[in-house]
């Protein structure tokens, strides 16, 4: 455990060194602010295919083994739906940017249809909307913008995403999604945030009503926050960059809580044990999630430090 001590010291040092206006006293009623929040940025790369316009294009993914955020998946079991969206006003680059930053609106899509896969494949002709067959192939013609096919898991996490471009001259009618079809490179900044100073070995209350922006840089609607996580990471805070999408599994111990409103008593956290506050081991993180949002990255994540 000797290796962990310097990390705690480092967090404290960040506070003492003046990385943001650190509170002098630990809080038991902790008002979270934008200064406490991490920042997230992502670079998304998406493969695109020129496909025969009007064709009953076959989508398949038998070799897909990881989702967009690095989680392992079974291609036959874990891809529960495929969403197909036509975005007539947006280029592939604009869709990529919108997906990464979570800024796409429903009105950006002229058409959204869904397919429940037969194994690991969905032809365009199987896509429908609430039981209505919309003859998707008839829509899939040139000059209808960027078509986005998103493979979704049970909780609507994007397993993979690809761009389909209808071209009259193309003869291609099949595409196969692999782990290389879409890649997301994430950069997380935890060094610029002001850690939240809390007492050791004691639960506390957090209030996030004062947050105005999420870690992605977007305006934050408080009402979308519906899950809270507190956990300890063995690695340094830097390791959160790799683990930001998987804190449930990488933090140990970890506690979670379904939340509504804008505050929560962490005494209500659910984990293998009751939450009794943080200790001096490892790096402690508190994250707030919007589970209905497209990007599953925490809307808020901060480090907890004790004196």
């Amino acid at each position, binding site marked *: 455990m000797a290796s962990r001590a310097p990390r705690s010291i480092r967090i404290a040092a960040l506070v003492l060194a003046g990385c943001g206006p650190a509170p002098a006293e630990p809080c038991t*009623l902790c*008002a979270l602010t934008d200064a406490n929040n991490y920042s997230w940025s992502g670079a998304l790369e998406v493969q695109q295919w020129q496909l025969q316009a*009007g064709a009953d294009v076959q989508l398949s993914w038998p070799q897909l083994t990881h989702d967009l955020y690095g989680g392992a998946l079974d291609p036959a079991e874990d891809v529960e*739906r495929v*969403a197909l*969206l*036509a975005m*007539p*006003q947006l280029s592939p680059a604009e869709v990529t940017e*919108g997906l990464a930053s979570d800024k*796409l*609106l*429903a*009105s*950006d*899509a*002229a*058409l*959204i249809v*869904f397919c429940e896969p037969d194994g690991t494949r969905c032809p365009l002709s199987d896509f*429908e*909307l*609430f*039981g*209505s*067959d*919309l*003859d998707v192939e*008839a*829509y*899939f*013609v040139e*000059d*209808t*913008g960027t078509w986005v096919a998103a493979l979704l898991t049970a909780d*609507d996490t994007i397993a993979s995403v690809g761009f389909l471009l209808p071209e009259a001259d193309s003869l291609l009618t099949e595409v196969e999604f692999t782990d290389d079809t879409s890649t997301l490179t994430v950069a997380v900044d935890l060094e610029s945030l002001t850690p939240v100073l809390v007492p050791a070995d004691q639960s506390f*209350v957090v*209030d996030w*009503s004062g947050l105005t922006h999420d870690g992605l840089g977007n305006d934050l*609607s*408080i*009402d*979308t926050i*519906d899950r809270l996580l507190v956990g300890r990471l063995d690695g340094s805070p830097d390791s959160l960059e790799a683990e930001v999408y998987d804190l449930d599994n990488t933090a140990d111990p970890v506690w979670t809580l379904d939340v*509504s*409103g*804008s*505050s929560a008593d962490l005494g209500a956290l659910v984990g293998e044990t009751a939450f009794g506050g943080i200790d001096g081991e490892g790096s402690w993180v508190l994250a707030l999630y*919007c*589970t*209905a*949002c*497209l990007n599953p990255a925490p809307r808020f994540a901060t480090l907890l430090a004790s004196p």
Partner: protein
Amino acid sequence: MTFTAAKLRLPPLSCPGTFRHSRVPVILLLLAGCQPASDGPVVDADCPVDQDLFASLAPRLAPVETVVVAAWETTEAVEARVLYVDTNDPDSTLSTPWSTSGTAGLINLLGLRPNRTIELQIEARGAGDATDSERRCSPSATLPTGSLPSALPETVVTTFDEGRDVLGWHTVAVIRSDDSLATIVDAEGQFVWATEVASPVFRATLSVDGTAMLSNQPADLWTGTGTLWRTPLGEGDVTRIDVVGSHTDFVELPDGTLATLGWTNRLYADDTRNLLGDTIIEVSPDGTQTIVWDIFDHFVPSLSGQYAPSPAAVGDEQPQLEEWSHVNSISYDAASDDYLVTGSFNHSVMRIDRGTGDMVWTLTDGGGATDWQVNSEERELELPHSAQLIDDHTVLAFSRGPVGSEADPAACAWVTELALDDSTGAANPLLHYSSNDCVTVPFLGEARRIDGGNTTITWSPAGRISQIDADLSVVFQVDLDLGAAFGFGEWSADLYRSDDL
């Protein structure tokens, strides 16, 4: 004037009881949105507090936690209303309509934002005291509103032309891939009421009596059961009415009768052709269900070609069920007691006499048997999906356009207003509007004329509601995040119906 809560028999703290007698620090109470009872009336400082009149005042949250249920008792019969204010906006005191005279009352405070602190008072006056000359008020009480379902998508107001928009409320269905919600959106594009109902629901609308949200879950098979849901805005039980074949749309009549589109079929060509058609089914307040209109009684299908297989078919139904009339919206005109429905089979608006079930007229834009023929160089009615009778000779309609056809696979949807000219039999366009960014609407879609002359447009699958003025300028627009859609809805100037309090 000073008073104590005990003397008034009011709770010392108008917050959930877990805090009431605990030693929770005041700052925690404030964080939770709770405040001790005030030392004086702060909602309306000019209204004299009568501590002897109000025997009790116990505000509480309804199941939808943005609704504050204000219930009170008085020591004498009075008319009363609730004065209330969101403490985030302390300069905007609101009031409910007056209640009828009595010694007890209950009013649901509607239109409140989630997670806000609401301060309220009951204002009383003698029966018939229209001048409010002897008004008296209760002490103030405070209550935090709760949260709305986390399944709600975020809204983004993309246009807000203050002064040109007509302020009001949209009750509207929100449809996601796995769940649906009946919601109310305020004039600033924020959700103020929402509840998850069965999925999908296509229309959400306030009940005529103003006490409930009505919504519909369509049948997925033509012999299946659709459901009309009634969810109290405040407290009470959710009720349901199952209607075989109920699909797509419904409307409530002033007497509480519900009229829903229904499905029926008819066999043709020596029983080798099986065509799906539509009905109107009325559900009276006592639950009686009556088919008041059957399209097969008024139109003879052309059998020259095959219609598309219907997704509402039951299994491998033989002969194959063909999607023929595809009636997809219904509205009601109280002045004439007529229904308006839209049909895809002839790109028409059909006006139906409710009392007899007879056709009053048919308006089409494509030739064929019709009473009114559109007179325009532009296409004005194509796959219409809503129609509203503005007056006896003016129709507002929403058209999805030729979506999905090879001719125009990404057609913009549009709204058209047509004036019916008795002398020529022509329907002349008064208005034709499509969005500058060409919104495609392959599913639902609706336009409604609202108070003040503006028009609201619900571009359903695009997750957008627009309000345009007479100059066709967008004066208000709200968009949903990607992944959610609007269904059908309704615009209301006021959430309160004064005659039901």
